[in-house]
């Protein structure tokens, strides 16, 4: 029973992660990219929770809380950067920001 839960949960995590990655790779809008990263982080968080439940360890929960914190910080910084970018460039297209090439 526990193994069935784990395998179904992992399939869900992979689907979530793939969906996030697809968003990051395919969208040019920085807001979408940030959301894609958010989804990928939640997919990893789900894996930690599943692992914790399967082996009855508290570590999974602890790590999930860590991931949650990181995600919150990332969103805060990321949104601030996007806001600044929009003020300066009047666009939030990721492909328009290529000054750092080479």
């Amino acid at each position: 029973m526990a193994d069935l839960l784990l395998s179904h949960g992992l399939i869900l995590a992979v689907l979530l992660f793939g969906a996030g990655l697809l968003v990051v790779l395919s969208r040019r809008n920085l807001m979408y990219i940030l959301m894609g990263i958010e989804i990928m982080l939640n997919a990893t968080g789900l894996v930690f929770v599943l692992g914790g439940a399967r082996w009855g360890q508290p570590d999974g929960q602890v790590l999930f809380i860590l991931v949650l914190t990181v995600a919150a910080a990332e969103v805060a910084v990321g949104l601030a950067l996007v806001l600044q970018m929009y003020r300066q460039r009047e666009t939030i297209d990721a492909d328009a920001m290529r000054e750092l090439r080479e």
Partner: protein
Amino acid sequence: MTVLLALIPALPLAGFAILALAGGVLPRRGIGTVAVGAVLLSALAAAICVIPMLGGGQGVTTVDLWHWVVVPGLKADMALRLDALSAVMIGVITGVGLLIHIYSATFMAEEHGYRRYFAYLNLFTASMLILVLADNLLMLYMGWELVGLCSYLLIGFGYEAPDNGRAARKAFVVTRVGDAAMAVGLFLLVAQFGTLNIAAIMDQAQLQWAAGQPLAIAVTLLLLAGAVGKSAQLPLQTWLPDAMAGPTPVSALIHAATMVTAGVYLIARTHSLYELAPPVQTLVAIIGAATLLLSAFSALAQRDIKRILAYSTISQIGYMFLALGVGAYSAALFHFMTHAFFKALLFLAAGVVIMALDDEHDIFRMGDLRRRLPGAFWGFLAGGASLAALPLITAGFYSKDLILSDAFRSQAGSGWLWAAGVLGAFLTSIYIFRPLFIAFGGEAKTTPQRRATRPELFAIAVLSVLSVIGGLVEIPSALGGYHGFSAFLHATLPAVPVAGETALGEGTLMLISAAVVLAGLGVAWWRFGTGAAVEHDNALLRLWGEGWGFDRVYDLFLVKPYVWLARIDRRDVVDLPYTLIAAAARTLHRGLSATQTGRLRWYAASIAGGAVIIIAIGVL
């Protein structure tokens, strides 16, 4: 005494150091004072050292300064040695050098490289003194290379004009050919005797070597190559006419009076070796005779007053080589001394003329300078008469006559060598009176812009007097006989090995050479002195004018192939592997930097792709 001896080369060296390091803060007068003062003090020190020797040339002063090179198999000291031979040399170098420094002080006043000029000139004087005072051949070689360097720097003094730089390079490279051979000769001597001390080598060579031994011949040939390069003798004479690109006082000091006679000094200094190699000594005489004739013909066909004098210098050094070749060392040194006087004088007088006519070198565009530049005229006349060896009244007569009679009467001499010398004397008389009649006589063509200054006239006057009376230190037996000069040198150099009875006596020989000189004067008067000077032009004169085509042959067989090879190798064939490595690195760099697109999503995709690949490798 020993301190004074060390001061002789040290003072001009100090002058050089002051001018090079602190000359920037000195005013123009100060620069001249330092340079002339250094040579003046050096000349005084030389006089104090030499005068006590005048009695009979006895007495050798040596001073050991410090150990220079001490390695197994070779020990060379910084040591100076003053004997009769070097006494003659330092007398001429400091004396004539001082006069030319005085002359330069005003002559070069308009030049913007005033400090550089005097720094080089002082360095040259110091190097030349080191060369002649050196007690071992290594130190001599150091002085030898230093004077070559100074010659290069001073020929290229006006380096803004590319031609001057080319002439300087030519002089440097051509003399270097001889110097390389000379270095090999020194290596052979070290390998053989384990020392480069001149006196020790001479002693041991006489003990260990049989006359005509191959090794003796090899060493003397190699040293001769060095001497030939430095003294502009056949076949390395081509650099000297081009060296006239330098300032005129430089031509007077370096390319007439002192440096170019270093080869004569070297052979006289190592005469014991040459006596052990009779074929080489004969070769020296033949080179001298051939050179004096070829360049006398060349001098006949020049239009440039300085090139006439340059070819004349080559020719007169040919006389010195002729004398060395027949064993008449003191005659060679005697001619070296008088030549230093009259040739320096000719150059200084020509310098005044060239400067006054706004850098005009062509004698056919000069005229009537006798009235317009009397100082230069009398100087040139005294120098020219002495060069032509006008009988009895000039110094050149006594020295040239001594060489000619020794060439005839020495055991090593022959009638042919004497005949070459006499023909050369005839040509000398023509080629030096030609510019005298054309430039100083005839009709005025230009107006002098500048008069000679007092220091210039002073130098010219002193040298004029020396050119006239300087020969009285050695008077042939047929005219009463006074052998002060050769007696002085006999302490160091052996006397001429005179063959017992000769077909012609000393007096007859003298009459013949005197008659030949006067005949030359007559020919010059007939061709150039009467009426307007006519320029002649035919194939033979053109051949003589370009120095018998030596330059063209060397250009074709040496310079052109070398330049061709250099052009092929412009991309540096040897460096190819290293340039390939660099090219590969550059290609990789270009490939990698192409991945830095600046597109955020590309980076994300490659991170994801990379992670997938690594995980796949880990799982499988």
